Every structure is written in structure tokens, then in C-alpha cells.
């Protein structure tokens, strides 16, 4: 799979404060990659470095397998922290400036304003917008020209529930087109709902990365093995609480909705005529870990 962003051993200090330490992440094309961590954990610093806003002390990164340049940034749409536009210009004029910088024509401006629901207000000055509208314009600007990668840093911060739902809907729509999305968030729930992959960072150190389903799913999971793995798979799929299953080495990793106990599972399979050679319950350790991290930081 093609690597879109590769970060190697990135470190950055602000004075005495260590923002990130030897952070490495690899993001492939088509992933919806969440960077999850509490406030001040180094998410924005990491993204700012990859967008050439901040110089790292150590380490390097590459976009699309090349050395980063202004040309690679033109292929990326980004929303970083706050929406930054000229207050005295209309959304159309502001987006024209973005299009000029990215060497695009203006033909996509109406589309992105419609997608974000700002078309009706396209000639109002930016400073007359509500915060939610400003945030949506930031997303419109990031979507301009259908970039290969979309970077969203806390895109729902400060929005009301309706605004949050709107923005998530937009992100999921874009993801369907195969755009790679990098989403930084401190909300476990947000990452869970949107992302396919996640890296968890705290105090500038990466704790974990992998598939969201593997690490953050709140459903219970079990590792199972039997002499006849094919029959086991068929049998387990008939379980009423069954969610998904995947091969994990010699074992079958099975996800259930809440409330499945190992003993019940064993009985269920025995009734189906299968004897297990291996049964192990997987704890929701990472979710708990993440909540503890959040707690520590509060």
C-alpha cells in the first residue's frame, strides 16, 4: 500500500517543555487516520511540523514518498486549530486566494461552498460568520480541488452538537471518495466514529497505533482456536451477539457486542459440536488506558 505520510523519530522542544519525543507514524493511502491524545499531547505540534509551520529539533518526515515541499502541500487540504481567513473578505474571495496559492482555477469554489452549506452566504464578509460557519469555511477551503489528503485538527472543537454532526457527516462523505484523512482529536468517541486507524499519543510519546477496531472498539473480543477453524468461523457467525471476526495468526479474533462471557461462549460452541483448543478474553485495556491518560492530564 502506498505511504502518504511517513514520520520518523520526530522531536520538538518549546523551551523546557518537550512537545513530542521520537514520534514515528506511517499513514497509508485511503486510511482515515486518527491521532488521539489529550490536549497538549503533541498532536498539533506534529501536524504543524508536517505542514512546515514548525521546525523539528530532530527527525524527518516525507509526503507521498518525497521530501516535503510547497508542492506537496498543494496536494493536501488542512484545517489547523482555528479558521484563518481575511475577515473583510467574502468566502468566495478567501477561497479564490486559496485556489491561487494551490495553482487551481476557481471552478471548484461553488461546489465546496455547497458541500459545507455556505453557498447562500458566499458574498457575506467572513467576520459576519458564526463560529460554526467559520469552521465550515475552513473545511470548504481544505476540500478545495479535491486534495489527496485531508488534515483535520480538532475540526469539531467549540461546535454545538448539530455543528459536530454536520462536520462528521462531511468528513465521512469525503472519506467515501477514497481521500486519505488525518484527524487529530482528543475525543475518543470522535475517532471511534470516524477513523479506520489510530495512533494514541500522550505527552509527546506514541503509545500505540493500529486499526481502530482492534484497539478502541468497546465490544468484547475473544481469541479462539479449534482443530477445524473453518467450522469454528461458521459456528461463531451464528452467535446472536456476533460482530466481526478475523484471523490472527493461529487464532480467530472475534468481536461481540456487549455482554458475552467466556463460559457462555464455550457452552455455545460446544452445543454446535466444537471443542475449543484455545480461548482467551481480550481486555479493553487501551480504552481504559486512554481514559486514565485523560484523567492524569486533567
Amino acid at each position, binding site marked *: 500500500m502506498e505511504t502518504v505520510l511517513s514520520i520518523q523519530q520526530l522531536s520538538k522542544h518549546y523551551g523546557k517543555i518537550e512537545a513530542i519525543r521520537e514520534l514515528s507514524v506511517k499513514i497509508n493511502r485511503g486510511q482515515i487516520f486518527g491521532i488521539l491524545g489529550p490536549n497538549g499531547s503533541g498532536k498539533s505540534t506534529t501536524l*504543524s511540523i508536517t*505542514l*512546515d*509551520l*514548525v*521546525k523539528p529539533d530532530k527527525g524527518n518526515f516525507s509526503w507521498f514518498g518525497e521530501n516535503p515541499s*510547497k*508542492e506537496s*502541500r*498543494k496536494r*493536501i487540504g*488542512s484545517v*489547523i486549530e*482555528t479558521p*484563518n*481567513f*481575511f*475577515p*473583510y*473578505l467574502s468566502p468566495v*474571495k478567501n477561497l*479564490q*486566494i*486559496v485556489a*491561487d*496559492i*494551490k*495553482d487551481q482555477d476557481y471552478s471548484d469554489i461553488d461546489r465546496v461552498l455547497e458541500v459545507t452549506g455556505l453557498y447562500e452566504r458566499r458574498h457575506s464578509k467572513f467576520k459576519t460568520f458564526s463560529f460554526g460557519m467559520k469552521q465550515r469555511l475552513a473545511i470548504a*477551503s481544505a476540500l478545495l480541488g479535491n486534495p489527496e489528503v485531508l488534515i483535520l485538527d480538532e475540526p469539531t472543537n467549540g461546535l454545538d452538537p448539530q455543528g459536530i454532526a454536520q462536520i462528521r457527516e462531511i468528513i465521512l462523505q469525503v472519506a467515501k471518495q477514497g481521500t486519505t484523512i488525518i484527524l487529530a482529536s482528543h475525543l475518543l468517541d470522535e475517532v471511534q466514529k470516524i477513523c479506520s486507524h489510530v495512533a494514541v499519543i500522550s505527552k509527546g510519546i506514541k503509545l500505540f497505533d493500529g486499526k481502530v477496531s482492534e484497539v478502541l472498539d468497546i465490544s468484547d473480543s475473544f481469541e479462539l482456536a479449534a482443530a477445524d477453524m473453518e467450522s469454528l468461523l461458521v459456528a461463531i457467525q451464528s452467535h446472536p451477539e456476533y460482530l466481526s471476526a478475523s484471523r490472527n495468526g493461529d487464532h480467530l479474533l472475534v468481536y461481540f457486542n456487549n455482554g458475552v462471557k467466556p463460559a457462555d461462549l464455550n457452552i455455545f460452541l460446544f452445543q454446535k459440536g466444537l471443542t475449543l483448543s484455545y480461548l482467551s478474553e481480550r481486555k479493553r485495556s487501551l480504552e481504559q488506558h486512554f481514559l486514565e491518560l485523560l484523567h492524569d492530564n486533567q
Partner: protein
Amino acid sequence: MIKLLKIEFKKILTYRIFWILAGLYFIFLAAGIMMAEFMINNMVDNMNKHLPIPLPHVTIYFFPWIWQNIAFFATLRYVLIFPAIIVIIQITNEFTFKTIRQNVINGLSKSEILWSKLLLILLISCVITILFAIGTLIIGLIHTQVDGWRMVFEKSPFIFGFFVSILSYQVFAFFFGFLLRNTGLAIALFTLYSFIVEPIVYYFLKSPVVFRNSISPYLPVNSVLRITEYPAIPVLKKVMGLNLQDSVSLGQTCIPLLYAAIMIAIVVWVMNKRDL
């Protein structure tokens, strides 16, 4: 280059404060130039009260000396400050609105951002210089019995001198804007330096308290003002026997340009070092 200017135009042409400042600038400029002769003659009248032989009234709007006279009045600190403030606001706005970050994110390099502001300065300087040249030509033609184009353009190197003054003073403003990043602070310190700090340093260096030196004329703002240091009033010169400036010296125009080059280099260095 065209692309960068196109972006700058979008940022500036619908900005009301720009038009207000540009309007004030041209009102100040026009009023200053039109009042100049009257004010000088007012001074002459006052002096004449104490003189046994009265000095004659002067006229300043005639060829070829009008180039020097209008260049002098149009490059007084009070007039030069307007385009400089426009430049400071155009630069510090990018930091206030954080659009400089957004522009880098979207695919401009830091050097392109510096370039776009320098191009804007160059363009503003060219426009003002062209207006200066056309305006001066018209005023001159109204007030002079023209006796061949040679007489008209004899002192036209002052157009170049005027251009260098406008350009380099705006580059000083560019320097303050990019280093201080805050609109109020940059305008305050720039004005304070131009109007108060440097004049104090100037007289301090000239005073007998300090060692004998000739540094004063080489101070940054002073070097800009010295390009056209005095108006040319041949009558007064003759009467008072003064030997005042009557041409643009190449050496003098090089000094503010050298300052401008150093300041640009410092800004480039700082911008490359600093995070946005």
C-alpha cells in the same frame, strides 16, 4: 511573480483601511505641495520684518527646479509615513489573522511570502513615483514658460531619487512589520523611531558632548531624507549666498538602498529561523 501579486491585490483592493490611508496620503501630499509656496513666502514675510533689505518672494513650481522642490515636500517624514503604514498593516495583518500560517499550509513557501510583500512595496513605489512624475509635469507646465524639453527634464533625476526614498522607507516598514508582527506595536515603534528616536540620536551625535564624528547623515531615516535634502530656491540661494544641494547624488541614494538590503537579509534570516 504575477501569481503572488494577484494574491496581494485580492488582499488589498477590498480592504477599506487601505483606501482610507491611500486617500489621506494623497490629500496630505496634494495639500502639502499646493501649500508649500505659500508657506515659504509666509516665512519670508516674517523674516523680512527683521531685515533691512527685504527678501524677494519665491516661486517653486517652475522647471527644472520643480522636480527637486516637489520631491522635497513629498518625501518629508509626515508624508512618507503613509505608504509605510500601509505596508506595516499589510504585513502584520497576516500575523493577526494567522493567514500567513494558512498560506504556508496551502502551499506558499516562506520566501514567497516575503517576496509577495516586497513586490507589493515595489509596485506601490512605482505607482506613487509615476503619479509624482505626472503631477509634477502638469504643475510645472502650468507655471513655466516652457523653452524646450531639455529645460523641463534637466532635473528629472530627482524622480529617481524620489523613487528610492519611497521604496527604501517602505522596506524599513517591512522590517518592522515582519520582526514585530503586531500592528499596533509595529506602527508605534516605527513612528517613534522615525520621528523621535532617530532625530534625538542625530542631534546627540552632532553635539559637542560626543566625540567628533560624521555618522549623523548615515542614520537610516536620515539617509532617506537626505536624497532630497533641501528644496531648490535659486532666488534665496543667490541672495543668501548659500551653497545648497542642486542634484541627486548616486552615493546618497545607495545608502538607504544598502540599509534596505541589510534589513531584507535580516528578515529572511529571522523568518527562516522562527516557527510560524
